[in-house]
């Protein structure tokens, strides 16, 4: 009998084992919030915080704003499941700072090119207040600076066009009196994040250093101090992010300083330009000790473009005199006027992404042959960040980041090194078998405006916040598995 029991046993294992197969259970440690109070999280910030992407604020972008993604992770450790954002309509083309719609990747003349999704943005977004859906946990306002976050009436249309922020108007409890900070603090958050300061340098940078201005260090420091102090009246915990160096952003690095590719200008044209324009200009400039401003165009290599550098000594009068014998007084005066502060771009200049659509176009109301932007007519200051301007920006960025780091450290807040993170993206990150970098369109991290992030970029940014928070507070909030987040959508 015993023998048969054993045999029966073996037989039973074979039969049962064949039909009852079970999946192994993964031993995932339970996440913990440690001492964090995440019952009310409010995010202070600018366009990146708002979910702005592809040059516009639109619904899908808001859904993957890093604060919204963070809140979802917070919920996994007992944080509030509710995170309210000032959403725009779901099917809207969105709206950008110049009234534009979001960009999508299209095919133009057989080439992949970012194009607006619609002729204009959805202006109803600016004219429809969503304040009744608030208060908003996400207080990210496109265009906000550290120094404007504390402005009462920042969304007051009565200030006149250009002097108020319509992105704030639509969500402010009282546009005439509220500041971003007052609406944020009124919610009595228990935890806050602050990622502000980009526009304190970026607004200047985006304009090629031609307009706006970099916030002063003292005003920046004052503003950051006020924001942290005010938020911490209820929120004892939080995270402060620093700001990226602009050279991490494709907006400034995609167009090379020699954007005129070999063959882009015909050989005949190059000869003609060298004979009639570049040659005489270089000769005249050399006589005034400024011959390095312009070199002859190369027929065999990519060429730089002509720009106007307002930091150069204006040689208009000298050029006019020098060119008068060859060109006649009237033409010489015109040349002198146009090329008095002209030079070619060098490796230290940054040509803005949007400038690509200007280079090679005709300058209105200027006669041939000095009427082609970048080639026979210098690009205006707004199209290029010169070495001097870039230097100003880098100095300011370093100064701001030092203030932010000190502020976080003094207040005992988590410090998120976004600057280091985006610098690593510039070098290239390998993430879950996917290569991610800062290359425009294909890199995966940056959206079609070259500044704001893709859903994938936002998820990775959220992870930077989580790592910093976990480090500061000893929590184990799980990171986001970003392997299923999108980069740019291809047609």
């Amino acid at each position: 009998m015993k023998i048969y029991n054993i045999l029966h046993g073996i037989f039973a294992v074979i039969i049962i084992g064949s039909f009852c197969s079970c999946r192994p259970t993964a031993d995932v440690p339970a996440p913990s919030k440690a001492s964090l109070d995440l019952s009310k999280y409010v995010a202070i910030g600018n366009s990146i915080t708002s979910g702005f992407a592809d040059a516009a604020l639109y619904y899908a972008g808001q859904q993957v704003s890093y604060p919204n993604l963070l809140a979802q992770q917070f919920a996994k450790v007992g944080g509030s499941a509710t995170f309210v954002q000032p959403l725009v309509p779901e099917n809207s083309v969105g709206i950008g700072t110049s009234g534009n719609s979001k960009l999508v990747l299209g095919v133009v003349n057989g080439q992949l090119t970012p194009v607006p999704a619609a002729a204009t943005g959805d202006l109803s977004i600016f004219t429809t207040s969503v304040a009744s859906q608030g208060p908003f946990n996400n207080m990210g306002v496109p265009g906000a600076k550290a120094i404007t976050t504390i402005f009462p009436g920042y969304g007051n249309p009565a200030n006149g066009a250009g002097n108020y922020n319509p992105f704030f108007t639509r969500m402010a409890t009282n546009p005439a009196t509220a500041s971003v900070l007052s609406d944020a603090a009124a919610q009595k958050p228990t935890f806050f994040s602050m990622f502000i300061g980009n526009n304190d340098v970026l607004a200047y940078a985006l304009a090629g250093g031609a307009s706006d201005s970099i916030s002063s260090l003292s005003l920046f420091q004052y503003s950051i101090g006020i924001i942290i102090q005010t938020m911490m009246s209820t929120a004892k915990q939080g995270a402060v992010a620093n700001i990226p160096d602009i050279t991490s952003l494709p907006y400034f690095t995609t167009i090379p300083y020699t954007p005129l590719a070999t063959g882009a200008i015909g050989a005949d044209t190059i000869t003609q330009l060298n004979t009639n324009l570049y040659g005489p200009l270089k000769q005249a400039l050399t006589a005034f000790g400024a011959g390095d401003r312009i070199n002859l165009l190369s027929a065999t290599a990519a060429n730089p473009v002509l720009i106007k550098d307002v930091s150069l000594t204006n040689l208009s009068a000298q050029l006019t005199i020098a060119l008068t014998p060859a060109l006649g007084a009237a033409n010489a005066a015109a040349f002198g006027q146009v090329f008095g502060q002209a030079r070619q771009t060098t490796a230290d200049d940054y040509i803005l992404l949007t400038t690509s659509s200007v280079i090679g176009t005709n300058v209105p109301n200027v006669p041939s042959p000095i009427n082609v932007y970048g080639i026979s007519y210098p690009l205006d200051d707004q199209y290029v960040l010169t070495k001097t301007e870039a230097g100003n920006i880098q100095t300011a960025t370093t100064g701001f980041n030092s203030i932010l780091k000190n502020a976080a450290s003094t207040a005992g807040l988590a410090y998120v090194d976004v600057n280091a993170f985006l610098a690593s993206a510039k070098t290239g990150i390998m993430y879950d078998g996917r290569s991610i970098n800062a290359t425009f369109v294909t890199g995966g991290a940056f959206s079609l405006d070259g500044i704001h992030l893709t859903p994938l970029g936002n998820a990775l940014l959220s992870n930077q916040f989580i790592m910093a928070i976990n480090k500061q507070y000893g929590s184990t909030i799980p990171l986001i598995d970003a392997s299923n987040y999108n980069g740019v959508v291809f047609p």
Partner: protein
Amino acid sequence: MYLNSITHKKSLVKKIIISILFFFPIIVFAQGYQLNLQSVRQTGMGGTGDADPQDASALFFNPGSAAFLKTNSVTGGILPVISKGVFADASSGHVSNSDNPTVTPFYVGAIFGNPSGRIRYGVDVYTPYGSVMQWGNDFTGHFQITKISLESVAVQPTITFKVTNNFGIGAGFVYGYGHIDLRQDLPLTMSNGSFANAEVKTPANSFGFNVGAYYKFSDQFAAALTYRSALKMKSSGGKVDFTVPASLSGEFVDQKINAKLPLPDNLSLGFSYNPTNRLTINLDGVTANWKPYDTITIHYSQPSAALTDTKLIRKYMRAYSLKLGAEYKFTPQFNGRIGFVYDKSPIPNDLVNPDVPDANRLSPSIGIGYNPCSKLRIDASFLYEHIKRKGENRLTDINGEYLFNLYIPGLSITYNF
């Protein structure tokens, strides 16, 4: 006049280079997928049997021992592999499931000739390698692998020679044929929101050999030494199909591919001991040389800026297995069997991949044999394998824990005549 330059500058993204790191995890033949399922009887005994010829499956285990079979024999069996797995991403805790269609390794072997003569002939058909693994849509490593399927069959005509009454040698010629199907997502989002993907399908084949020696010290004790050659599988007629956004179809053209996949040789030393008429104990040690499995290159017939040859860095090490098995004759009709296999994985710790989440493991097996009459035997077996591997990959950054349960029942019929 400046039209050229204008056109050039307008198309901003003209010179886009889609620099996708195009990894193809082409091979799944690690230790875990080297199927040691060429006999239901032996599977019940931990996969041992190099020095213990019982039926025509000895042609596979040791061509040198088959000459010592007391009768001619025809045997055939199937051993379906049922597997279920999970991957837990280390940083997010996200768990993905792997639902794997059942694969059915099989074998058919026959040996002929005069059982009392010196030379006999046989042929064995078996499944040397095989696996199917299909991850769910949300799998963390989906840019490496979403589905992998490998089917293979080997045919081994064999000659076995009883040199003396105690010593036998044999040799088989091996022709291996396989079919590989791999799918992975590409990091490009299509307009419908899904990821682009690529599928490689290729047949592959190779020639090799299987030789063995068998020495019977006494009726109680025998030893064996066998060597199965490497199989340098060469793809022929392989192709890759891309599902990519229309605007990138020029960069990713469906095309032919070729690749070479070195499968390891196997050297084994086996012992068989019969302390009584009823009990058999086997012990086999095997080493597989995976070192040639270092970097696999996939060549594309129409490469582009976005698609260059794929280099798969695997750097496998030598693998080892130790097998222990026993059979006990309860009655003249019924045998019971038990065994254990310890496998040491060839995969280095810093290069674990979701295509082969292999691990060191100890796998138990049991089996039963039934002889309804003296010539006929029916065998059943059950092998359980549990794979647990903390995977870190320094190249892909896919880090987490892989867990798999493999359930392998077997059923065979053997006719000795």
